[in-house]
């Protein structure tokens, strides 16, 4: 694959270890990566352009993650970037967010512990 063809994934995650392994994992499978430590940082980087897909961890009190998702959806420059949501919560939350019709559903939805192979399949499905 030529350098110009490499897709870029923005990893929004406040746990350093999680950022590290996701970046290594995507990197190992032919993607460029950029990391953000929280929702604000993530939105800034997403708005900057060049991002093909976003993985967003919204566990627990990471309200900035939820806000970021809202902002992404409401901003023309970012609303078409596919977002994969990672959460520590169960199916009920998925049902809950699907009932919110004001926003599009995320492109993908993964519950921890994340199955790496499934995650990769989904990413490839979304951005090749």
């Amino acid at each position, binding site marked *: 694959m030529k350098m110009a063809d490499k897709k870029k994934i923005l990893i929004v995650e*406040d*746990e350093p270890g999680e950022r*590290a392994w996701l970046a290594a994992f995507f990197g*190992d499978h032919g993607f460029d990566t950029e990391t953000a430590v929280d929702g604000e940082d993530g939105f800034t980087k997403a708005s900057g352009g060049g991002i093909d897909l976003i993985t967003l961890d919204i566990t*627990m009190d990471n309200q900035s993650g*939820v806000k970021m998702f809202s902002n992404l959806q409401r901003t023309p420059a970012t609303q078409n970037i596919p977002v994969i949501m990672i959460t520590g919560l169960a199916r009920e939350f998925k049902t809950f967010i699907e009932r919110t019709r*004001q926003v599009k559903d995320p492109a993908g939805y993964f519950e*921890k*512990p994340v199955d790496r192979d499934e995650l990769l399949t989904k990413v490839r499905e979304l951005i090749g």
Partner: protein
Amino acid sequence: MRIDTYRDYFESMPCFLSVQDRDLKIIAANERFVRNFGDPEDRYCYQVYKRRPEKCEDCPVERTFHDGRGHRSEQLVRTLDGRDVSILVNTAPIRTPDGQVTAVMEMSTDITEIKQFQDQLRTSQRRYRSLFEDVPCYLSIQDRNLQIIEANRQHREAFGTGYGCKCYEIYKQRDTECTPCIVRQTFADGQAREHEEVVTRRDGQKLNVMVTTAPITDPDGEIESVIEMSVDITQLRRLQSKLSSVGMIISTISHDLKGLLNGLDGGMYLVDTGLKKGNQERLDTGWEMVQRNVGRIRSTVLDILYYAKDREPDRQDLTAAAVVAEISSLMGIKAETLGIDFTTEIVAADDGFEADRQALRSMLVNLIDNAFDACRVDKQKQKHSVTLVVDGDEQEISFKLTDNGVGMTQEVLDKAFTLFFSAKGSGGTGLGLFIANRIVRAHGGRIDLESELGQGTRFVVVIPRRQPPGEPAEELEETASCDGLQRAAWHEAFGDPEETEPDP
């Protein structure tokens, strides 16, 4: 009237008739008497009626001879065939034309059946009274004005006598009717009803009760009163609450484990690929993740074990110096590895206090671990420090733990000690702070918490040096939930899903 007619009346009266002379000898008897007691044949009434050799002590016939007036009494007599018969005796004097009482007529009515009914009624009343009094629930009977006209023993003991008082005054300590009032509803339609209530005993204790009402009707079928039966379900509700707490604990643990597994998995990936690629940096990062998450598993298991035991503190004499030394040695190496400056200081003059050594250590380690994690996650500052200061006065000892880590938002602060609290940056388990709080409360102490996002956090644990005689640890209300916090975040960002437009 002719003699024959009187004779006929005498013979056909539906009672036992006999006539006695002054000596109490029977000089006449009707057919019914003869049939039941035999031909008197000049015998005395006490011989015939009572089979006695001498006269009765309180003889109504004698009294009539004495005062010339009729008398009544109840007697027990025996018939020819050996039957015991209860009789109601009425006597009447028979006079000569000049008014002398020459004989006395004794009229005896068989009241055996009536007496049997009376006994049965008395037994029945006693039984119902006993049932009403002794049944193990609160019983009261109200009239149409909701005044209590009857109450059983348990009710009187719990709520006071209250006769004539309104039921809502007694049960609820209110001065207005309840809405809805199921007693009123039962008066209105005659239907039994059921409703859960919270009532207050006269000693102030609140009870959860299941109340059932039923109408009491008079012989014409009109509802004259309503009986209210209240069964104490307080224990049941407490158990339910505990069970739901247990449910939440399990959810918390499950949530924590998901996060841990994710971290372990990620760490293992980095170790695995780091080894294959010969990438030392990746290997180190991965291994550190594995170690940290294994440590978190250990914490979770210990927390679960503590929660399962939920024991009273095992108080021992401790010194601040010893506690601090132990903590330093436990946490010092970890601090060094993380590059955190960890210092301890004892300011308090008096060193000694009483506490459960294991629980205290566990609690402090938990808080310090959280502080370390808050520092580790904070990317804004270069140098991180965590300090533990032991202070206090004669009455209390305090442990102040300060860090300059990532800090917490107000919303996170508010929910810090509830289940499911696990600020991302802290790495603590959802159970950890909850249990730390529990340990402190079990010692009769408290935890105060201050934090500023981006600046750091301060925990202050204060416990009495010597324990007052045991008050049990309070039940901690769990209001926050994992799902709840995340929904709140979603609401804030997107509004309530219920308010969205319906499908076209």
